[in-house]
């Protein structure tokens, strides 16, 4: 019970730290001071104190979009087990619910973007749904590999205790799907090389351009939700890299925290070292990630 409470608290409080770490790493690479690591917390507080401006073209869907997407991401976070504890909600086969809840969040974000009647948002929405077409099957192939490795169908078991008991012959498949999961994480959270979160031009944006017309508390909800989504995917990757089976909560939480921080730093390094891919090249990257996941799946099926 206590561990579930701690999981929920960590999920609610820690995520805004991650974009701050990424921006700090990018600043270090660029030779700048950069914003403080807690910048997103300050931004969220500032936004929550503001009023709101709504476009005359919009309907109730625009006002509902940020709320529904944040609610879906919060509900999805209830299925993820952190640091080897058990998740607050879990049932066999909840991987599908996890993936489809993220899909519901995407559905409403896209609708809220189309509601503004602006060509920018339409562009971003079109690109967002296109990249999800390639990322969703990859995610499910990753789930299949984990089902074969752990023999269990619930998210907290697949990414948790059962993974440490997995026979060694699946180690190769696991390495391959960690790479694929990393690329899917970059795609879902609109990081370089899929999208550039730093600019605000319509040529380079996917996620940023969809939320262009939101402001005030709505924008706070959206930024908060995006950071939680990044945290969840990194948490899943952390579980794949470092199995949590020691049974000692303190050690597990430190391992978990260290791995998530390390992964965030890796994302920051990738963002500083690479440029954004041309839009029409991104499907190739996602297809390559999918093929690598398929190779991992074929290896695990023998």
């Amino acid at each position, binding site marked *: 019970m206590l561990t579930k409470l701690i999981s929920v608290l960590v999920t609610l409080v820690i995520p805004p730290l991650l974009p701050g770490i990424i921006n700090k790493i990018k600043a270090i690479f660029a030779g700048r001071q950069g914003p403080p690591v807690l910048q997103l917390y300050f931004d969220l507080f500032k936004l929550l104190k503001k009023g709101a401006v709504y476009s005359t073209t919009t309907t109730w869907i625009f006002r509902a979009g940020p709320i529904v997407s944040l609610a879906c991401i919060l509900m999805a976070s209830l299925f993820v087990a952190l640091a080897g504890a058990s998740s607050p909600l879990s049932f066999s086969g909840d991987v599908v619910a996890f993936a489809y809840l993220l899909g519901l969040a995407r559905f409403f974000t896209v609708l809220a973007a189309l509601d503004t009647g602006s060509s920018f948002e339409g562009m971003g929405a079109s690109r967002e749904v296109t990249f999800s077409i390639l990322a969703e099957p990859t995610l499910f192939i990753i789930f299949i590999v984990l089902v074969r490795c752990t023999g269990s169908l619930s998210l907290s078991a697949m990414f948790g205790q059962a993974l440490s008991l997995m026979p*060694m012959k699946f*180690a*190769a498949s696991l*390495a*391959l799907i960690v790479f694929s999961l990393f690329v899917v994480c970059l795609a879902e959270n609109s990081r370089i090389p899929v999208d550039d979160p730093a600019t605000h031009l319509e040529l380079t944006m996917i996620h940023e351009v969809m939320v262009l017309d939101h402001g005030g508390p709505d924008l706070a909800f959206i930024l908060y939700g995006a950071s939680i989504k990044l945290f969840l995917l990194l948490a899943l990757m952390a579980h794949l890299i470092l199995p949590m089976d020691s049974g000692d909560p303190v050690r597990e939480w430190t391992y978990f925290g260290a791995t998530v921080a390390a992964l965030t730093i890796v994302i920051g390094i990738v963002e500083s070292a690479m440029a954004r891919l041309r839009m029409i*090249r991104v*499907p*190739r990257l996602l*297809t*390559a990630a*999918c*093929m*690598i996941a*398929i*190779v991992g799946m*074929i*290896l695990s099926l*023998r």
Partner: protein
Amino acid sequence: MDHLVQIILIGVILTNLVVLGSHPLNTCIRAVALQGVALGVLPIFLHGGEWSYHTFLISFMIIGLKGFLIPALLFRAIRDAVIRKEQEPLIGFTASLILGGGLVGLGFAVSGGLPLPAEMKSSLLVPVALSTVMMGLLVIVTRTKILTQTLGYLMLENGIFAFGLILTKELPWLIEMGVSLDIFAGIFVMGTLMGHINEEFNSLSVRKLSNLKG
């Protein structure tokens, strides 16, 4: 030992996918070079780690040939012809990647049905060899620049070499010499051909060859 072999073989598959999906020719040549090095290192680790000086020498030769000499030749060919990038293949990069993934699956499916000696049944060597051969063929068939076709030919040879590793514990000198000569002759011919095509058409695209039709 066994894990190391598995990792090397998975690396071979990944280099194949890199060749199928990359745009810049430098990356493709480096990937094939890496593949050559990996396959050269393999005989040392393969049969339970028992190696003689003979095996060591063979590996050294193969790494030198496939990992350094032939890529150097190819890099020089690029520099002479001043080409940098691969054009869009006949079926598109994404479709090549998807087909490559399918061929990996096919390799695994086919190797499951072959009658192999017992110790080889669980190893990754046969599927990886078959997949490499098929992906080399895919590259030859779908690319338009003769340089990439040469790389495809090299991948094909690598696959056949890997397949040969299964059968022989020791590699008789004669077979090794034959294989090396085979590769060398092929590269030599391709290099000359490349030079002549470039002179004639000022481009390395195979499509221009159809201008020779009467």
